């Protein structure tokens, strides 16, 4: 029996015959109900969850009025589903602060390790785990940590909450570029007598009505359809008709550095921020938003959906220029500039092999010609909090930030940033 638990475990690949197995964080993660009785942690339902979220946020507002900092955070754990882009898992979370020991910092030579058992000598390698997280024990994107108490919600709802409760700004001008209206043809109109496709259900309804009016249905308990009289007028058809179709008003490009150094917390921050921004735009544009996802290390590529965007990780170096170049190419090739409000959001840790921005700056300049906003978020590593990353340096030298404050924004935060800081960062990036 594989030991299952509601509390998170990690996948572990052993070199030998050990297949994937779960490693629990500590001895206190075990409990009788899951270990002995195989009972899973209970599932919260959508309905109870959303209601309490409203309540919780209301309570949180009251807290602030009473002079205490807010405690509720939302959406820290998200599992975007494959394909369905509008679906997001919102998890209202909080933490009860206490004085507790910080195990992450230890004096040299004191670092722990875990227990183990089985064959092998000191020094033997017994297994490996692919780097997806910063440290092997870290929580990372895509892990089912919020498995139990998650609340499914649409990104639109999240955007609404973000706008209302966290006071994210509303867009002042919803699109200088007009929204296109075009017609598509669909089999939606109904017509009696003739048409392309017989609407069987509607037809049957009419036949029943006719026969009732004729008194041809003596007993409703026992209907004999073979005795029905059918008038030619009873046949209902669907016919092709023009329909209005609204085109998206906004096109958002999400760019993410997925090089090796981004592992762990930085990725988590960037992706969370992008989910928030996406949700906010979705609400602002009343769902008329299209999004594109681009990952880059030294080379850039476009991926299909948020799921892939969220979960990908490679080990390469970093060239920011590649991503901007790809966006420029896409915009040009698809002639997007004419029809869309274009937003570009880029998350990185600030490392760039193009240390003085010689390649990046020209690409960025081109990009600024047709975008509404470029928002760059740099999450600095704890070990190098200096406001001196390569990217930040050359961006400042370019003077774009002062010259075009409406078009480009930069936010720099530490990788240990809390959700409240994240929201502040979003305000910086998107405020008018």
């Amino acid at each position, binding site marked *: 029996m594989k030991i299952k638990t509601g*509390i998170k475990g990690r996948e572990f690949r052993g070199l030998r015959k*050990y297949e994937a197995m779960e490693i*629990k964080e500590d001895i*206190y993660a*075990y*409990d*009788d*109900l*899951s270990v*002995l*009785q*195989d*009972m899973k*942690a*209970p*599932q919260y339902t959508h309905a109870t969850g959303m209601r*309490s979220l409203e309540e919780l946020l209301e309570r949180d507002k009251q807290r602030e009025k*009473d*002079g*205490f900092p807010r405690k509720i955070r939302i959406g820290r754990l998200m599992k975007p589903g494959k394909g369905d882009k509008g679906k997001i898992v919102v998890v*209202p979370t909080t*933490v009860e*602060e*206490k*004085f*507790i*020991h*910080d*195990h992450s*910092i*230890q004096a*040299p030579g004191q670092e*722990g*390790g*875990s*227990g*183990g*058992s*089985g*064959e092998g000598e*000191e020094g033997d*390698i*017994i*297994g*490996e*785990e*692919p*780097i997806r997280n910063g*440290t*092997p024990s870290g929580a990372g994107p895509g892990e089912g*940590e*919020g498995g139990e108490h998650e609340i499914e919600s649409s990104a639109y709802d999240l955007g609404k909450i973000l706008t209302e409760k966290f006071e994210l700004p509303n867009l002042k001008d919803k699109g200088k570029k007009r929204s296109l209206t075009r017609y598509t043809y669909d089999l939606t109109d109904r017509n009696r007598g003739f048409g392309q496709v017989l609407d069987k259900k509607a037809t049957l309804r009419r036949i029943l009505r006719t026969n009732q009016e004729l008194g041809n249905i003596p007993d409703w308990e026992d209907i004999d359809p073979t005795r029905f009289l059918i008038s030619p007028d009873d046949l209902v058809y669907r016919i092709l008709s023009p329909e209005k179709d609204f085109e998206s008003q906004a096109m958002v490009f999400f760019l993410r550095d997925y*090089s*090796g*150094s981004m592992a762990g917390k930085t990725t988590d921050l960037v992706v969370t921020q992008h989910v928030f921004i996406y949700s906010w735009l979705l609400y602002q544009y009343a769902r008329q938003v299209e999004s594109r996802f681009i990952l880059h290390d030294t080379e850039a590529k476009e991926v299909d959906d948020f799921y892939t965007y969220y979960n990908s990780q490679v080990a390469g*170096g970093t060239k920011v220029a590649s991503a901007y170049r790809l966006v420029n190419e896409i915009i040009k090739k698809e002639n997007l500039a004419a029809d869309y409000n274009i937003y570009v959001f880029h998350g990185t840790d600030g*490392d760039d*092999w193009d240390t003085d921005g010689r390649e990046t700056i020209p690409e960025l300049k081109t990009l600024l010609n047709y975008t509404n906003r470029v928002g760059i978020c740099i999450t600095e*590593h704890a*070990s190098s909090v200096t406001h001196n990353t390569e990217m930040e340096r050359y961006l400042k030298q370019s003077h774009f930030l002062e010259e075009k404050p409406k078009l480009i924004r930069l936010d720099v935060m530490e990788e240990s940033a809390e959700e409240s800081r994240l929201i502040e960062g979003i305000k910086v990036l998107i405020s008018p």
Partner: protein
Amino acid sequence: MELISLHAKKIMEGCKERAREVGLTFSDETLEYIVTNRDLLELSPKVMIPTLYDYWVHDVEVLREKGRYELYPGNPYETVINTRPPISFYNDNNPDWLNVMIFYHVLGHVDFFQNNAFFRNTWDYDFLGRALSDKRVIAKLRAENGRWVDYIIEFTRGIDNLVGYFGELARLDSPEPERGRKMLDYYFDIFLQSVKKTRISDYIKEVDRYNTFQKQYGARGEEAFFVEVKKEHPEFEAFLEKHLKMKPVQRMDLIEYLMQNAAFLKKEENRWMKSVMNVVRNTSLFFAPQIRTKIMNEGWASFWHEILFMQDDRIKGHEVDFARVNAGVTAMPRVGLNPYALGLRLFYHIKDLADKGKLSHAFQQISNVRQREAFDTGARKGQDMLLWIRENLCDFMFINTFVDQDFMTHNNLFVAGTRLNEKKMVWEYFIKSKKAADYREMLKDSLYHPPAITVDPEKTKEGHLYLVHQFEGKPLVSEYIPNTMLGVEFLWGGPVSLETTEVASVGPSAVSALDSAPGSAPAVGVKPEVNWQRVIYTMQDRKLTKEIL
């Protein structure tokens, strides 16, 4: 929630009889309930105590990544709770044979709850009943004071891991010593050492003299000794009287200290807050023994479910089913710690030691491996030893005393380390050490251990509360400090300072080397050097300041 069927209850009663036969002791009455997903939804935030007070945080998913067990000592999904009578929870569709195994496991826990000395503070009352009355108190106060009740709960919970659990145990365990004992203690512990400042050699002579008197005069030896003492130190009696009149210094935890001394809480309109604080403190004390005996408790329950299940004549034919489930529960993981497996093996190990008379000086003196293995005095004291251990030890003592090299070798144990393999971009798990000492350290490091933070009465002046964190090699989680101190400031009603230790600087670490530009030198392999500094955080008017000492 509904009770288990009569059929299942009958099986349970049969299990009780068999468990008593092997020496387990527990109360006659127990309650067993079937729980559904819906029940768990309500129970798990309340640590399986159905009558626990309501608190809004119970309805929210709590961030788990960081030191979860340190924030929440109670287990959210326990099968049996330590109440009078004990209550246990079952899945609806367990087959009988599985229930037999679980019943034995539950009885192991109940026996442990009711006999282990660390649970002494939970023996005299039924927590379920107390929790119910507490819940009503809080509901009533909430009707009167609204959300402020929740703030008091929140702020008190912020320091509820600092409760003086061991002080509470000591209070319960040591009866007031009689006068003669007090005189003896005072003479040797205080009078000679603090008042007279006797030299060590003289002190030892004095101890010898006392022992001689005891030998010479038997029961009246002490009396005779003190006649001599009083002759020698005429002032002794006066000093003793003065000492006895002095109130014993009570060691209070932070919550107690606030309740007794905070001017804010003494105000008439704030008196109700103390009731809330008391509820939170008592709840925390109730869960304290559980988390300090996780390995023992699970090991003990697993040990007995294994032995008793195999002896049970009622489940013939389900040995294979049992073996599968049991292996899942008690198998040692290749990497990681399983308290069931570890505790179980330690109990077997100790039983073996005691059966063969290996818990003796004679055995310890043997260094020859073969002789050690063959050693057997035929003592057969295993069973007694196990019962004694479950009565008197907690996880720390259990591990510290019995995880030895023989145990390591016998069970193929090792400390597993992780390191980064940059070429393959994987974390490698490797065998770091097979030494018992290292394994013990690793285990001890993973045990629950709240920081030692106490009030410094000397430095607490003029309404300014001064807390001291005794540094034990690990700093506090810094992001939690502001809000926790905010709560203490509120309850105290004035400025609060916390003296603690934190990282001053860290040497180069390997993180930044991960994808540094080609050409720049990678810094891998350099162990980060940590320099510590003592700092004082002060919370005043809801503003936090920091000062380096």
